[in-house]
C-alpha cells in the first residue's frame, strides 16, 4: 500500500511537470513568440483555459504527500522553507499575472504583468526541478528526520543541473505546444525557438538522466525509464526538425514524465535521502500513514481520479482548436 502511494505521488508530480510544464514554457516564451500585444494575447490565450487545472496537480501532489507520508511532507516542506517561499511568490504572481494582464487597457500595465509572467515561468520549473532532485540526491537530514542544513545545501551541483534541465525542457515543451496551437508569424517564431532549444535540451536531459542513474539509483526499472527518456528526447528533436508538432509534443511530454520518474524509481524506497547517514533516510516505511488511512485514501482516489481525468481531458478537447483559425482572439 505504501508503494502504491509512492507511485501515486510520482505520477502526480510527473503529471504536474507534463501539464504545467507547457504552460510554464508558454508563459516564459510569450514575449518572444508574440511580438506585439495582439500576438501575446493570442499566445497566452492558448493556456488561459487550462493552466489553473494543471496547477491543481501540484496542489494534489502536495496534499497526497501530507496525507500518505506526513513525515515526508513535514521534512521536505520545512527543510525547503526558503525555496518554497520563493516558489509560492512565483506561483502567486504568475497566477495573478495570467488573470489580470488583460483586465486593463494600458500598455504599461500589460508590460509589467508580462515581465512578471516571464520571470515566474522561468523560475518555477527550475525550483521544482531542484526540489525533486534534492529528494533523491540527498540533503543533510538528522536522526530525528529534521533538515539541519542551510539554504545553500539545497543547491548541490546535480540538483542545479537537474533544475536547468527541467527549465530547458519546459521551454521546448511550451514552444512545441505553441507550434500546435498558433499560426502565421507567431508559429514561425515558436518553431525557431524550438529548433534552437533542441540540441541544448538533448544535452541537458541526457546528462541529467545519466547522472540520476549514477547518483540516485540504478536497477532494472530505472534503466528502462532512463532509456525511454533518452529515446523520447531524441525523438522530440527529430520530430521538431521534421515539424511534426503533435508528435513532438507527445515526445517532450514523455521526456518530462521520464525525468520525474527517473528520480522516483531511482530513489525508491527512499523518499528523501540523508546525505549525513543512510540510516537517517526517509523511506516509504518510516514516514507513511497507517494502513486504515491509506485505505480510505485509496478508495477516494479510485472513485475520483478517473472522473477528474475524464473531465480534464474533456476540457482539453473543448479547447483543442488552433487559436489562430478559431474565433478566440478576434475580439475588438
Amino acid at each position, binding site marked *: 500500500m505504501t508503494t502504491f502511494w509512492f507511485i501515486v505521488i510520482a505520477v502526480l508530480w510527473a503529471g504536474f511537470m507534463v501539464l504545467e510544464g507547457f504552460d510554464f514554457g508558454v508563459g516564459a516564451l510569450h514575449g518572444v513568440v508574440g511580438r506585439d500585444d495582439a500576438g501575446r494575447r493570442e499566445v497566452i490565450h492558448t493556456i488561459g483555459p487550462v493552466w489553473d487545472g494543471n496547477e*491543481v496537480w501540484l496542489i494534489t501532489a502536495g496534499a497526497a504527500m501530507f496525507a500518505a507520508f*506526513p513525515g515526508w511532507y513535514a521534512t521536505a516542506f520545512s527543510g525547503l522553507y526558503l525555496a518554497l517561499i520563493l516558489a509560492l*511568490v512565483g506561483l502567486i504572481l504568475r497566477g495573478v499575472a495570467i488573470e489580470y494582464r488583460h483586465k486593463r487597457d494600458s500598455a504599461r500595465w500589460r508590460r509589467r504583468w508580462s515581465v512578471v509572467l516571464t520571470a515566474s515561468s522561468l523560475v518555477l520549473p527550475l525550483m521544482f526541478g531542484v526540489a525533486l532532485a534534492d529528494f533523491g540526491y540527498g540533503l543533510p537530514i538528522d536522526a530525528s528526520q529534521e533538515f539541519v542544513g542551510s539554504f545553500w545545501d539545497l543547491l548541490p551541483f546535480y540538483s542545479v543541473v537537474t533544475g536547468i534541465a527541467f527549465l530547458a525542457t519546459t521551454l521546448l515543451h511550451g514552444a512545441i505546444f505553441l507550434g500546435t496551437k498558433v499560426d502565421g508569424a507567431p508559429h514561425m517564431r515558436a518553431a525557431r525557438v524550438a529548433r534552437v532549444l533542441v540540441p541544448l535540451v538533448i544535452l541537458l536531459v541526457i546528462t541529467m538522466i545519466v547522472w540520476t542513474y549514477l547518483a540516485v539509483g540504478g536497477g532494472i526499472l530505472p534503466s528502462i525509464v532512463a532509456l525511454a527518456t533518452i529515446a523520447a528526447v531524441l525523438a522530440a528533436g527529430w520530430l521538431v526538425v521534421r515539424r511534426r508538432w503533435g508528435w513532438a509534443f507527445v515526445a517532450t511530454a514523455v521526456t518530462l514524465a521520464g525525468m520525474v520518474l527517473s528520480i522516483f524509481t531511482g530513489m525508491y524506497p527512499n523518499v528523501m535521502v540523508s546525505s549525513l547517514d543512510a540510516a537517517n533516510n526517509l523511506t516509504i516505511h518510516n514516514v507513511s500513514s497507517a494502513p486504515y488511512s491509506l485505505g480510505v485514501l485509496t478508495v477516494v482516489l479510485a472513485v475520483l481520479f478517473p472522473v477528474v481525468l475524464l*473531465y480534464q481531458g474533456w476540457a482539453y478537447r*473543448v479547447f483543442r482548436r488552433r487559436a489562430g483559425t478559431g*474565433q478566440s482572439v478576434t475580439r475588438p
Partner: protein
Amino acid sequence: MSNVDLARLQFAMTSIYHFLFVPLTIGLSFLTALLQTSWHRKGHPEDLRLTKFFGTLLVINIAVGVVTGLVQEFQFGMNWSAYSRFVGDVFGAPLAMEGLAAFFLESVFLGLWIFGWNRLSKRVHLATIWAVAVGSALSAAFIMAANSWMQRPVGYELDPTTGRAQLNDIGAVLTNTVFLWAYVHVLLASLVTASMVMLGVSAWHLRRRTSPEVFGRSARLALIVLVPSALLSLAVGSHLGVVETTYQPMKIAAAEANWNTCGPCSFSLFQIGGGKNDQTPKQIIEVPHLLSLLATGTWNGSVQGLNELQAEYEQKYGPGEYVPNVFIQYWSMRVMAYGGSLVVLFSLIGAVLLWRGRLGRTRWFLRLAVWLAPLPFILNISGWMLTENGRQPWIVQGLQLTKDGVSPSVGTATIVTSIIVFFVLYGILAIVCTILMTHYARKQLAPEPPPGAEPAREPEFIY
C-alpha cells in the same frame, strides 16, 4: 517574540487574508450561477448582462483566492512540521480529498466557463458555472472537516509506539458535530458576504441611475438571498456556540469573559477593561439570563468559569496556562454578533422596501447598502478570530499544544523573512485587486446587443 508567536502571526496573517476572498468566491459563484440559470430559463437579456458583469468580479476575486490558497496548503509543513508529523495521518486525508474532489472541479470548470461561452452549448455552459459553485463549496467542506478535527478530535487513536494520531474512523471525522454546524455557518456567511456585495454594487449603480432596470434585478436577487441567509447564519452561529460549549468550554467562557462559574448567567453587552489581570471589569450593560440561554439553551443553565476550567485543565493536563486571550475572544464575539444583527436588520428593511416597490428610490438605503458592503468581511474575520484564538493554547484541542507543533528546524530569521515577503506581496495584491474590483464594479454594463444580431463572440472579461 518566540518562533511560536512568529509562526502564529504568519499563519494568522496569511489565513485571514485568504479568507477575505474565499467567502466572496463561494457566495458569488452561487449568485452568478443563479443569474445565469434565470437567463437560461426565462431568457431576459438583462440577466445575461448581469451574469457577465458579476462574473467578471467573481473571476477577479477568485484569482487571488486561488493563489493565496497555495500558501495555506504548503505552510502546515513549512511552519508546523511537528504538527504535520503528529496529525498528518488524520488531517492529511481531508486535504487530499479536497484536492481531488474540489480543486480540480473548481479550476477546470472555471476555465471552461470563462472561455466556453461560444464553444459549449448553452445548457452545458450553464452546468460549468454550477460545477464551479459546487467545487468551491466542496472545498470549504473538506477544509472545515479538517479544521473541526482540530477543535474536536474524533475518529482517531494514538499510536502507542510513535505517539502519533492515526485515523480509525473517517465517517466520524466527516460527521463531527462541530464540522456540520461550522460548515453550514460558513456557507451561510459566504452567501451573506456575496449578497451584501452584490447589493452594494447594485445600489451604487441605482443611485446613479445607470441601467436601473437591470441593477434593480440584481438588487432584488441579492435581497432574496440575503434575508434568509443572514437570519439563518445568526441562528446557526448561535447554535454552534452551544455545541462548542460542550467540547471547548474555555472558548465560550473566554468569549463571555466569564471568570467564575455562574448560573443563571447574565450576558455582558459591553464592558471596559477585562483580561487576565482584570477579572472584574466594569460592566456597562448586562442582560440577565441571556448567557445561560445562548450557551446552554436553557433559562437557568450554568456556564463554567475560566478559573474553574483552568483548575480542571491543570488537573487533567498538568500545570500550564489554558486560558486563551480573553480580550480577543470577548470582542471578536461581540463584533460578529452585533454586526450580524445589524445585517439582519438592514436586510429586513431592504425586504420591506422591495415589497413596497421603493427599493430603487430610497436613496438613504442605497447609500447605506454601499457603505455596509465591507461589513461581512469584518464579521467573517471576527468569526475566525473567535474560533481559532479560542482554541489556544492548543493546536489540536486536548492533544497537542501550539508551541509543540512548530517546525524545529526553521529559524527565527527564516520566519521573519517569510512574514515580510508575504506582507509586502499581499499588500501589493490587495491594492491591485481593489483597483480592478472597483474599476469593474463601477463600469457600465456591456451594451445590449441589438435584437437578431449575432451574439457577442467572447464575453467582456476574457483576454
